[in-house]
């Protein structure tokens, strides 16, 4: 489009532009498909096909071997929607998400502001805040399991408490949330840090000349410039948090937690599939979960579109 506009203004380039258009059409048609083919093959095999298969299995009473499955219609879905344990597990995942997402967003922002504004030792702050994210979830979870264990744990020892973090249902999820904040905030921190570095200095200089103080500069420049990245951080964190599994399972010694209080949706699905061998039922739950996530993603898109229209 830009080329054709130029053609009008600069006739000397007209010939080039037509040549480009021809080349573009030819080359594109010949090779475009081959660029995306390898990815699409993998994607079809390991994303689309399992999704379709999941839909099919969810209408059957398949077990783990996949043999002798018969069609049961909507029975699995009916059972899942009436399954109190499923709603509990979904509630735990949602509760975890509600606790983690706002905390991580605020914490990541504050850490990034700190690391961005200290003039010395930038590499050290980056390293310290990001390093937990480099640990495998199981390792980070094992560390906190040990720190939280009553008796031998250093957390109670250091703060002079005797809290049954891992064995009481009112603390178990909180322990997992604390561990998750420590372990994953580094990733969002890095996104914020990169975004802060991308804000042009002249904006701040101009504001200073106009007499804006640090607070004004923060509210009128930094926060608006970070709006996109905040949206991204929140979206990524919601998706990641709803998929809670690793840390909860490891911290609770591969159990569903005290009085099932930390059993997440993913954990319950896998239990049904791999422990109770109810692949059909587990597939129905997977599809329900997929629909929930899709609804959230669509709601986000819709909100974004409305906001864009609002600002125009």
């Amino acid at each position, binding site marked *: 489009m*830009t080329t054709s506009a130029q053609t009008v203004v600069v006739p000397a380039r007209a010939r080039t532009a037509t040549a480009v258009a021809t080349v573009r059409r030819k080359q594109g048609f010949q090779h475009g*498909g081959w660029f995306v083919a390898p990815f699409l093959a993998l994607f079809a095999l*390991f994303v689309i096909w399992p999704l379709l298969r999941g839909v099919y299995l969810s209408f059957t009473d398949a077990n783990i071997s996949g043999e002798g499955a018969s069609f049961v219609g909507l029975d699995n879905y009916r059972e899942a929607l009436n399954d109190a344990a499923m709603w509990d597990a979904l509630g735990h995942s949602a509760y975890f998400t509600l606790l983690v997402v706002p905390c991580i967003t605020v914490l990541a922002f504050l850490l990034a502001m700190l690391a961005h504004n200290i003039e010395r030792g930038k590499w050290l702050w980056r390293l310290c805040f990001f390093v937990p994210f480099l640990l495998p979830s199981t390792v980070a979870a094992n560390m906190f399991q040990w720190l939280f264990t009553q008796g031998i744990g250093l957390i109670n020892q250091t703060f002079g408490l005797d809290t049954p973090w891992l064995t009481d249902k009112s603390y178990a999820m909180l322990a997992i949330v604390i561990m998750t904040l420590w372990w994953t905030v580094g990733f969002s921190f890095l996104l914020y840090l990169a975004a802060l570095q991308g804000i042009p200095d002249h904006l701040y200089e101009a504001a200073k000349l106009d007499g804006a103080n640090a607070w004004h500069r923060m509210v009128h420049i930094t926060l608006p410039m970070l709006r996109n990245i905040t949206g991204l951080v929140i979206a990524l964190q919601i998706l990641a948090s709803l998929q809670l599994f690793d840390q909860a399972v490891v911290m609770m010694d591969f159990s569903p937690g005290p009085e099932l209080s930390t059993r997440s949706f993913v954990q319950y699905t*896998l239990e049904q599939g791999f422990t109770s061998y109810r692949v059909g039922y587990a597939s129905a739950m*997977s599809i329900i979960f997929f629909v929930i996530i899709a609804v959230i993603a669509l709601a986000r898109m819709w909100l974004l579109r409305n906001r864009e229209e609002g600002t125009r």
Partner: protein
Amino acid sequence: MTSTQIRIKSRRPWTPSQIVLTLIGVAVSAVFVTPIAAALFTSLKSEAEAAEIPPHWLPEVWTTQAWRALWETGNVTNWFVNSLVVSVCVTSVVLTVSALAGYGFARTEFRGKSVLMGIVMSGLMISPAVLGVPLFTTVQQMGMVDTYWGMILPQCAPAAMVYILYKFFQGIPRELEEAAFIDGAGRWRVFFTIVVPLARPSLAAVGIFTFIASWNNFLWPYMVTNNPDLMTMPNGIATVMNSYGIQWAQLMAGGLMAGLPLIIVFVFFQRQIVAGVAHTGLAGQ
């Protein structure tokens, strides 16, 4: 000589606000490093001392017993090699296919492109956690349970990476490619000699994050392998070690061994990682 002088000049003096911020930074960093330090100290205790009540931070008797015990069982080396094979394969495949696909979607035309792009974007919502059971039965059907293939291939179709590179390739000026086309270069030649070199920081970021994700992936290898000989580092440590009753000193030593390679990589490449994040447009500019 001149360079040292310039460096000294460019250092700004300590202002009160910088001192306060630095102190806050030190305090917050201490909070972040403490659990890792605690794990390190625990790994240097004897098993008996690690389970002592009340606990204490520093070992009374420093010993490398836990590290040696882990080493001697031989499993850890095995897991390490498995992790390395899986992560290196996943990273190379992901980099190749997502760079090609990102470019294909951003800069070429073919029938059904927008529909396919829409389908790929909906894949952002699907992970092994969401579709674990059906994905497992699919992989089982292909006969890839308890194989390297089964661990590697399902991790190789991340829509997110395609999206990141797609966004980046869209930002490359078309004129660069067009000049080459007119000189007679084909699509592939343009891709490898012009586009890929330009994309190096983005590819580095995608590669590093894929490597981190794959090295640390627990759920998928956990579902697809039962064979302890095929386990990756995070799985071996979490599942096998716990089943023998928890030996805290060994567990911490193993955990640090699993975490160390990535920490070393990050120490060396952190500048490129931050630059890569900014460059890919992940940061939203």
